[in-house]
């Protein structure tokens, strides 16, 4: 059975003032802050494939603390019928 990956993530950017409604000494009731919600959906290019954040001093990936590797090997060198639904972690490891 094909394993499918999914990620449901949330990225939050709020000013500290917005996080604490009514925190000021104002006597007037404060309006709730607006929040813009952006919805991203789709396949692996929405998910992201492989990320590198390299420390320019150490030349290491800050996520893994390992030396920077070049691009991954071909992900689709796997047996089976043609199709993009068959990716598995093993096929890109």
């Amino acid at each position: 059975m094909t394993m499918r990956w999914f990620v449901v993530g949330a990225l939050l950017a709020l000013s500290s003032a917005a996080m604490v409604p009514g925190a000021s000494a104002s006597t007037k009731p404060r309006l709730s802050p607006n929040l813009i919600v952006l919805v991203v959906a789709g396949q692996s290019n929405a998910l992201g494939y492989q990320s590198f954040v390299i420390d320019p001093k150490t030349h290491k990936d800050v996520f893994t603390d390992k030396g920077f590797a070049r691009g991954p090997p071909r992900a689709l060198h796997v047996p089976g019928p043609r199709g993009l639904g068959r990716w598995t972690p093993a096929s890109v490891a």
Partner: protein
Amino acid sequence: MWLDTPQKRTGASSPVFGPEIGLARYLYNAGHKNLLVVKVAISGSSLAVDWAPHGEDLSLLVSRVQAAMAWATNLNLRPTIGGFYWVQGERDATDRAYAADYRTNLVHFIANVRHDLLLKSWTPFAIAQTDIAAYINYEQAQHLCTSKNCRSERLWNSEVMKAQSSVTGKHVFLARTAKLPRFKDALHLTDAAELSLGTTFRRATRSQI
């Protein structure tokens, strides 16, 4: 800005990100300080099946967005969906029937998303135009295509790309990805490409956010 939920893909050694980082950065710098990104992305999913009405992935999307809206409301915030960003099509471009139906399915998907997520009629819907031409070239070199010179495969890819551009309109926008850099697998966008796509999304929808 806090990245409070780094996304870890199953089996991957490091977190990953998609176009949302570039998009959120630009919106933040443009003065939109209160942002929440909700992402539901499933590798290898098809519009024809997985994102179809009552499809597993569409149901997941709706439930996750509703949960995020409820969470924000409970924090005394006033959440409004500012834009919807769709990055999908590669899977459908590898199947004759899926590709042929892509335009019809996409029209229905946009309508379903607008209905189920209670989007305003003017809420921007942005589509990343997929292109697997480079991958087909690889397939041709490896003799993996089902047709001579990969003609069928190129046709399916073209059908999906045309469908994506044909549904654009006043509130539906297209962001091209054909020229963006990809990893050696010829399919997946690099980090720089993901940031660039996010910027394009921002430019496409800025007049309405």
